């Protein structure tokens, strides 16, 4: 297989909820290892776009390609096996299970072991070791044996990240990874995102422009489901229309 030019391509994507168009002719291309930021006001259709990339929502028309392969009709779990991973804006963890178990599920999802029915999961020491290594990476190793329901909100955001990172995705979608975090937590998570290896292309939705712009190389501005601007970071920041969308004309 020749190396594809783009890690993720979104091509003329359209989606409407009833009469309400939420994605209108959206196209963007993300190179392998790129750091891309999607900005736009509330209701611009950012999360809806993510849900179409992951397959949770079916677009009305258009295409999603991962490394040149059309995945538009592929079930969400198959896209995960193709190297796509995501985090959620609203925390979606397994509250009664330990942090280690949560991350281990992330690892298990991509391994044939997940079909194993006759051997207790706890026997797979290697899975636990790797889960702990990932938790160490996000600075939560000391909480590995606690249930998720016991830990603080900011820590849960990092578990979200750990679950995705454990999968060593080729394309990682981060849906507001900084939402609701304190200033110190922000800088922790920011450093964490900055440390993601370059094999992974990162596409991030974020409102906190001060933090997020530092991480981004390219930026897309969405409004009312349309791409207003798409290009290198400095170009998008300098553009008149960015200010217009965010601050009003």
């Amino acid at each position, binding site marked *: 297989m020749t190396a594809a030019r783009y890690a993720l391509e979104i091509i003329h994507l359209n989606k409407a909820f009833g009469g309400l168009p939420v994605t209108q002719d959206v196209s963007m291309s993300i190179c392998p290892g790129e750091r891309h930021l999607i900005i736009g006001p509330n209701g611009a259709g950012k999360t809806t776009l993510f849900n179409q990339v992951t397959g*949770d929502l079916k677009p009305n028309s258009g295409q999603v390609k991962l490394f040149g392969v059309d995945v538009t009709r592929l079930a*969400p*779990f198959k896209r995960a096996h193709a190297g796509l991973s995501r985090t*959620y804006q609203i925390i979606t963890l397994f509250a009664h299970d330990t942090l280690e*178990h949560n991350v281990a599920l992330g690892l*298990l*999802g991509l391994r044939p072991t*997940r079909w194993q029915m006759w051997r207790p*999961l706890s026997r797979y020491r290697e899975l636990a070791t790797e889960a702990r290594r990932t938790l160490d990476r996000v600075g939560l190793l000391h909480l590995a044996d606690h249930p998720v329901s016991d830990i603080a909100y900011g820590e849960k955001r990092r578990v979200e990240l750990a679950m995705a990172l454990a999968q060593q995705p080729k394309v990682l979608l981060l849906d507001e990874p900084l939402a609701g975090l304190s200033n110190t937590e922000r800088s922790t998570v920011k450093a964490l995102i900055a440390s993601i290896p370059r094999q992974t292309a990162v596409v991030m939705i974020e409102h906190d422009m001060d933090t997020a712009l530092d991480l981004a190389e390219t930026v897309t501005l969405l409004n009312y489901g349309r791409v207003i601007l798409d290009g290198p970071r400095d170009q998008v920041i300098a553009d008149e229309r960015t200010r217009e969308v965010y601050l009003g004309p």
Partner: protein
Amino acid sequence: MSRLALAILAVLLAAFPFFAGDFYVNLGSQILIAAIFALSLNLLVGYGGMTSLGHASFLGVAAYLSALLTTRYGFGHGAGALLSIIGTTLTAACFGVIALRATGLGFLMITLALSQVLWGLAYRMSNVTNGDNGIAGLTRPAPFGIALDSPAAFYWFALIVTVFAFVMMAVFVSSAFGSSLKGVRDQPRRMAALGFNPWMIRWIAFVYAGFWGGVSGLLYVYYHKYIHPTSLSITSSAEALLGVIAGGSGTAAGPVVGATLVLLLKNYASAYLERWNMLLGLVFLFIVLVMPTGIIPGLTRLTARWRGGAR
């Protein structure tokens, strides 16, 4: 400590026929059969988050298949049992494909509808099933030449099968696949995003539960030596579901406790009360109000609090 308690329980269960009369030994066998049935339903309800009101389908299919194969078609008990279990598992595979088009309430309604179809067949297809008269005159098998006609022999047979079933289902639940199943119960979307196939995981659990439902059905028909359409009825499914929920769904011991409770109430209360179902209802109302998550989780919490308070 808990290992000691387990050993004592094992000895008590095994020695039960030595100190109990035939009536109680027979009651014990019925409880064991109901326990396997409830455990298999718990795989769906407790661990899979799939509340089914049609689980009696699998008990009934296995029982009817075994009855028909051994009486009408002249099969021996060994081949009859094997074919009944295969037939039941295949039925579960088909029903799973249909019922898992939906989740939640939709799933519940489809399982109910499918089991009602079987119940209707058992009633109306009387040239095959003998309708409302049921199929009588059945025999019990004699595995390895050991006759199971005495209450004690059957009890031990049922006990061995139950222990095996309990262990197999406990291993299943704690396995990697079991973790996937619980994950799909709690966060299906996340699980899909992580690379798990939620539909396939639910379907396999459904088929596995159907298989064990079939095993309980075989024991059921061996025990009663008779099969009637009521064992396919909604009451049969609902009683098991009540047992699972009352005992504590999603726990290993809960369904066993719940099934025991239902059977004891049924056997004792029906001797004194004609409307024993009313008493059953009241008992469940009490459990749901006092221990909304079931007896086993409720007791666990109580003892934890009591120990915490004693310190």
